C-alpha cells in the first residue's frame, strides 16, 4: 500500500498514535534533503530561468526566493537536530 493507492482506496479515518507520528532518523534525513535541496533551487533563481520578461511580477520572485531561504533554514534546523541541538530527542526505529 502507498499514499497514492490510498487516494483510490481511502483508509478509515482515525487518529494516529504517538508511535506512528514519532520522529525517526530517515524522516530527519528526508526533511534535511528536501529542505536544503528545494531551498537551494528556489532561492537560486533557477526557477524563473528562461522566462519571458514580465511573465512573473517581482513580488512573486522575491516570495519564491524568500520561501527558498526559509526552506534552507528549516533543512538546516532538521539536519542538526539530535546531534547539534535538541540532543535529548527520542527517535523511533523503523520496522
Amino acid at each position: 500500500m502507498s499514499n497514492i493507492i490510498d487516494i483510490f482506496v481511502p483508509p478509515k479515518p482515525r487518529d494516529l498514535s504517538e508511535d506512528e507520528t514519532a520522529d525517526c532518523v530517515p524522516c530527519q534525513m528526508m526533511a534535511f534533503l528536501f529542505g536544503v535541496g528545494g531551498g537551494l533551487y528556489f532561492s537560486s533563481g533557477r526557477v524563473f530561468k528562461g522566462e519571458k520578461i514580465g511573465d512573473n511580477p517581482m513580488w512573486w520572485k522575491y516570495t519564491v526566493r524568500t520561501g527558498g531561504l526559509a526552506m534552507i533554514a528549516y533543512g538546516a534546523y532538521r539536519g542538526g537536530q539530535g546531534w547539534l541541538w535538541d540532543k535529548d530527542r527520542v527517535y523511533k526505529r523503523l520496522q
Partner: protein
Amino acid sequence: MSADHTRDPCPIVILNDFGGAFAMGVIGGCVWHGIKGFRNSPYGERRIGAISAIKARAPVVGGNFGVWGGLFSLFDCSVKAVRKREDPLNAIIAGFFTGGALAIRGGWKHTRNSAITCACILGVFEGVGMMFQRYMAWQNRPVAPILPDSGSPMGA
C-alpha cells in the same frame, strides 16, 4: 488502535511512491508514445518510428509522474505528521501543495489555480473512493437468514 503494518512507514513510502509512479509513467508513456509514433511515421518506418518516440518521450512521462508521486507522498506524510490524523483531508491538502509546488514556475495565478484544481480533483477521487467503499459495504452487509415459518400448521 494498533499501528498499520501492511505498509511501509512514512519516509520509506515516499521513495516507494516515487518509484511506483515513475514505473507507471514509463509504462503508460511507452504505450501512448508508441502508438503516437507508430501512427505519425510513414509506411515502412512505423516500427522504428514507434521505438524512437518511446525512447525520446517515455522517460519524460515517467519523470513527470515520478515527481508528482514523490511530491504528493512527501506532502501527504508531512500533513499526517502535523495533523496526527489519517483521513481523506490529508490527500486533499497534499494535493493542494503538490499542484501549487509544481506550478510555481508559471507565476502566482498559475500556482493558485493549479493548487486549487489539484485539490478539487483529489477531493473528487477521495469522494468516489469512499462512495464505492460504502456501496461495497452495503452490498456485503450481513443479512439475517430466512427462518421457516414454524407457526403454520403442517396439515392435520
